């Protein structure tokens, strides 16, 4: 089966670069506005607090639970929601306790005693200081991976490739964060992992397109960057779509069947896969053009490098023959 034919006419991506660019800028700006107005809804991992998962025998009496908790001063702002099914609820509260032997979950168990038969299935409690530390570490992790990737791509390609791929990456991550703000999803550690995966995934996609452009620069006769980009992106279109589809469907099964705990994680990845695919096809390459990438310059550099390599080999050969 073939979706994209071999003799698929070359698509004029670059001719539409401006329109796509405007669309992307609008998306990124919207995301930034969302992040500034609605803001990220930090979950307990980053903001501190307690989440208690309670499973009842039969339907959970969620109204009773709310009423009982409202009476307690310490749990006034607590939110009680169903968690995946009718018999399970999650209680989220800002309060934490430092005592090892009696903690928030013990208190909640006593408070809820009149509501029926239940089991506390899980308790997550994070002190505010730990949350700050985790957030800092998350940002550092992102920063260091970006720096590492910049260095690697500069080394393997050229600095403009590196910059373009990192800009495409920021585009993807910003939009993913914007969607988290839009849907007010609890941002916890797994979400951070998802964002970092998007980072890797989006790069993966972009690098494969860039690899083809690099190859195009060497093999395609034209020195027109736009033509080279159009042909290279068209050639990788089949691969980009296929891989994105398989990844998308796998993440979708994770979202649908992976259980409540992985919902936020897989949602973030779903957004990331879609945006990452879009950006590697439409966004990353035009940036290369806007950065004034010069085909002839790159060819000259490569030729010079090749010459140096040959020179070295020649000398080595001479050395081995004992002529030096």
């Amino acid at each position: 089966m073939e979706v994209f034919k071999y003799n698929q006419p070359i698509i004029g991506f670059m001719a539409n670069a401006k329109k796509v660019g405007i669309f992307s800028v609008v998306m990124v700006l919207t995301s930034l506005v969302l992040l500034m107005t609605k803001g990220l809804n930090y979950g307990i991992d980053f903001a501190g607090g307690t989440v208690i998962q309670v499973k009842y025998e039969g339907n959970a009496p969620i109204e009773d639970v709310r009423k009982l908790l409202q009476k307690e001063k310490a749990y006034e702002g607590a939110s009680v929601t169903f968690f995946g099914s009718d018999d399970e609820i999650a209680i989220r509260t800002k309060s934490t306790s430092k005592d090892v032997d009696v903690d928030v979950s013990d208190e909640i168990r006593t408070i809820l005693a009149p509501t029926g038969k239940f089991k506390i299935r899980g308790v997550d409690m994070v002190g505010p200081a730990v949350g700050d530390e985790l957030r800092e570490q998350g940002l550092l992790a992102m920063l260091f991976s970006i720096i590492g990737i910049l260095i690697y791509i500069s080394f393997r390609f050229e600095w403009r490739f590196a910059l373009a791929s990192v800009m495409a990456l920021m585009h993807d991550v910003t939009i993913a964060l914007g969607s988290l703000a839009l849907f007010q999803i609890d941002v916890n550690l797994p979400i951070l992992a998802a964002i970092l995966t998007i980072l890797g995934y989006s790069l993966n996609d972009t690098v494969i397109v860039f690899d083809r452009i690099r190859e195009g620069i060497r093999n395609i006769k034209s020195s027109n960057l736009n033509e080279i980009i159009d042909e290279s992106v068209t050639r990788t279109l089949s691969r980009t779509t296929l891989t994105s589809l398989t990844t998308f469907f796998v993440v979708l099964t994770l979202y649908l069947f992976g259980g409540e705990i992985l919902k936020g994680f897989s949602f973030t990845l779903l957004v990331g896969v879609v945006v990452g695919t879009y950006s590697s096809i439409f966004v990353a390459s035009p940036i290369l053009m806007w950065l004034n990438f010069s085909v002839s310059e790159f060819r000259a550099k490569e030729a010079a490098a090749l010459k140096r390599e040959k020179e070295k080999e020649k000398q080595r050969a001479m050395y081995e023959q004992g002529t030096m």
Partner: protein
Amino acid sequence: MGKLNYRVVVFLFAFIFGVVFSIPSLMQSTDSNTTGKKITLGLDLQGGLHMLLSVKTEVALESKLKSIGTSVKYNLEDEDIIFEDLKISDGKVVFELLDKDDAPKVDKLLQDKFKEVTIKKDALVYEMTLSPELAKKTEQHAIDQAVDTIRNRLNMFGLAEPTVAKQGKDKILVEVPGIKTAADEQRIRALIAKAAHLQMMAVDEDRFNRLYSMTDAEAKQYGDVILPDVADNRTKYLLYSIPILDGSMLTDAQVGYEKNGNRPLINFSLNGQGAKIFGDFTEKAAPTKARMAVVLDGQVYTAPHVQTRIGGGGVQITGDFTPEEAHDIAIALRSGALLAPVQVEEKRSVGPSLGADSIKASSIALIIGFVMVVIFMIIYYGMAGIVANTALIANLFLILAIMSLFGATLTLPGMAGIVLTVGMAVDANVIINERIRELLHEGASITKAIEQGYNNAFTAIWDANVTTLIAAVVLYAYGTGPIKGFALTISIGILASMLTAILGTHGIYQWLTPKIDKNRLGFWFGIKPKKGEK
């Protein structure tokens, strides 16, 4: 069929390796007797308690200062030096000399005996503070001691494989798998938190009748302290605040039972020095039938009248214990006191049923995702899809095998990582197959299309995998707990896919080449080149 080439051999070897070493892990749910190295399930999958504790080191600093104060007092009195206003406050020990002529003697004494203490002198007023080095040492010691003590307690409690480790500079990570009920969990937390400060204190019989009209401050003036009874905190005791002896002289503590009944009690033995002090005290106290209180963490457990001299250093604590309480107290006493109390910074507790649900849900997602990818690859690529699927299966086994061999921990995000790897691992084969198809369309021979296809695809796959690996490694370095698990499975998945998807499938193609029929490209590669293309 072609000749076996080294690539196929390596691939076969990797495949067998993967299957053999992942069997113990795959079988662990059905047969717990399988031997061999297994993947450890994370606490989020098997259930258990995870806590990040911090140590209140300021308490350790304070008690260090107190002991310095006591030692200064003892040394000065020993040398018949007159001083006044010896106080411990605001992290300082302060006292004033009365006689100017004593100053040189005091200077020398302090310099000799209190080496790591910073001493400031203003006329005859001495101010002693802990030097930064000593303070740091004291804090570190308190943390290390807490780690050791908690580890001992959990080991003695008898649960499978608890982990107690220092994390970062001043945190303690405690992980206890296999807790069944909330009550058990609380019992374990109580055991961890117990200060286990044991003291034997003499009852101040002379002033005892005024106890209930006495304030704490008044008691302090007499050098006494008022402590409540453990069973009923309205019952109080007036005790001399300097203990006869404390838990540091204890060598063992065991649960026993009363002779005429089955109420549990705790027997403990003292070391030689403790036994002597205890013997001397009981000898002095016996004629007046004075009482001696056993105090644990500021509560009086028992305060019997001393009838006769007790030698040998064996002592009993009675009280209204349940057998579990007696068991836990004995453990806490044996493992020693905590120098400073611990507090919770982070706690995650997962019930066994929640863990089982997570395993089920993520396994279902893994299987559905896997089956979808496998079917899709066959429909789209024909035989080439089957080759890619073989690599994918080998990849999964390899991930499990490598994790088993390293005894790595599989967490819920780790499971998600494996699911994601399935989606991404086919990528390499998609790239390769697309390249081979292109070359076939251009009319290349089978052999040339395969060799050239692998060549063309290699740099793209390599660069893409390395960049993803960079992100995964950083995530591993900066992540905690479950996130580390995610980064680990992704990293292993990428490395394994380099072996299976690039090397392995290449070998299979080379081995199959003589069999591939140029006229059946639809079957082999899922394409039908038009005649005109050639």
